[in-house]
């Protein structure tokens, strides 16, 4: 056969045979020579092992901040690590120093106090998912989102505050934080400050947390008992970032009119976006089909997504409208109101 005779050809005078016949003669390994030209960007490599770094474990917030201030931009905080570690495995992220805060007990809390739900920097997504109060209607937005962030295993390590700090354009918690009007507690050299989520989310993967600073926790106002929400996410499969997602939370007055509404979109811009127009047109109104349609249109207009493998721009814009309408409908029905 043609191809076999080809191979026979290589067999007959195969220099490797010589090497082979003397493999135990200790013949030195010939090291290939290479030119020494100006360095170009490093090439694609197969394996996925992070570049070397120094690991510092903090036991207190003070200790963590000391490390961060000492190393500045070279340092990264390691909380859940569910976004950071994969990025490091591909060597997209190559911090010189990792400050592990998983041992900082004072940051491991999920508690209600002073009218807010306070979530510490190392509280896991699953701590919310399994919180005793999560079934309460007023927390329905949180109930929904806590079941669709990443996947069930990643949620046992991933943190709420970490997601906010990662600020992925297609993130879930950032969107929920906007709709529920959260505040992030940031501590730095100049002490502790409370940053409203709208100011906290600066740009894709960029937040108000500066070098040498860290987010200690997030605070979500405790909704009253005439409040309900909904998180509507379209994803290609479990564990995927949102193709599009909408977070809504509405509070009703005693007369059934809408006291306030939070409406936000994921995968609709550089980072999660608030649909101000929708929030405004909902406030003070009675839930109705027309109202939902108007809010849906506002979402469509507000959405400025990027095309990617998850979907085209027009599809994502379309979904933004659809999901806001669905979210509002579900939130209202959770409040016993048909719209």
């Amino acid at each position, binding site marked *: 056969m043609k191809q076999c005779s080809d191979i026979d050809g290589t067999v007959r005078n195969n220099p490797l045979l010589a090497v082979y016949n003397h493999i135990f003669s200790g013949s030195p390994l010939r090291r290939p020579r290479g030119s020494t030209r100006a360095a170009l960007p490093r090439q694609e490599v197969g394996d996925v092992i992070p570049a070397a770094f*120094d690991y510092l474990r903090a036991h207190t917030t003070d200790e963590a901040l000391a490390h961060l201030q000492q190393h500045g931009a070279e340092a990264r905080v390691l909380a859940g690590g569910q976004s950071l570690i994969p990025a490091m*495995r591909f060597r997209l992220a190559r911090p010189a120093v990792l400050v592990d805060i998983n041992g900082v007990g004072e940051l491991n809390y999920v508690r209600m106090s002073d009218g807010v739900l306070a979530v510490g920097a190392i509280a896991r997504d699953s701590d919310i998912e399994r919180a005793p109060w999560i079934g309460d209607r007023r927390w329905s937005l949180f109930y929904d989102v806590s079941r669709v962030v990443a996947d069930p*295993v990643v949620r046992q390590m991933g943190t709420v505050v970490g997601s906010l700090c990662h600020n992925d354009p297609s993130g879930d918690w950032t969107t929920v934080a906007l709709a529920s009007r959260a505040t992030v507690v940031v501590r730095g050299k100049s002490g502790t400050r409370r940053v409203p989520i709208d100011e906290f989310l600066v740009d894709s993967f960029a937040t108000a947390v500066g070098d040498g600073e860290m987010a200690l926790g997030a605070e979500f106002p405790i909704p009253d008992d005439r409040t309900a929400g909904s998180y509507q996410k379209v994803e290609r499969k479990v564990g995927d970032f949102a193709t599009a997602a909408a977070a809504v939370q509405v509070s009703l007055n005693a007369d059934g009119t809408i006291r306030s509404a939070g409406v936000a979109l994921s995968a609709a811009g550089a980072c999660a976006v608030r649909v101000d127009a929708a929030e405004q047109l909902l406030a003070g109104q009675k839930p109705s089909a027309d109202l939902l349609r108007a809010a849906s249109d506002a979402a469509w207009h507000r959405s400025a997504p990027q095309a990617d493998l998850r979907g085209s721009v027009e599809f994502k814009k379309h979904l933004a409208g659809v999901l806001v309408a669905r979210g509002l409908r579900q939130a209202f029905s959770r409040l016993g109101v048909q719209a």
Partner: protein
Amino acid sequence: MKIHVTVNGVAYDRDVEPRTLLAYFLREECRLTGTHVGCDTSSCGCCVVVLDGTRAVKSCTMFAAQADGHEILTVEGLAEGGKLHALQQGFWDQHGLQCGYCTPGMLLTAYALLKHQPNPSEADIREGLSGNLCRCTGYLNIVKAVQQAAATLGQPAGATK
């Protein structure tokens, strides 16, 4: 750096590079090769182990250094006194595995799931295992396996076979 990790009740004191992922620590330092690595992106769950008794974690997305001072349960630690764990028995009885590569991760994710949800419905199980990929079984028999295990574990002590 020096770390002290308890794996399946056995203490391991080792000196590791900070960048050593827990999965490779278990496989190469502890020689516990039941924990597998199937992807680079924390997607497949072949590497799932249980941290401190109740949390299922993807050991390819955690550094060995983070396990310092903690307890890890791997598939090698599931059977006790030569008796298979109810989940292992369930996977065997219900044909819940084929190539076996995802099985350790599935077992440990299910182990943590049953700690939080002792009587899961098919929907609960499908949701609870959705962080673990299987390419062979189509999941149906894995669901049955977990249901069998839940039933076994639910029985009063001694009633289990």
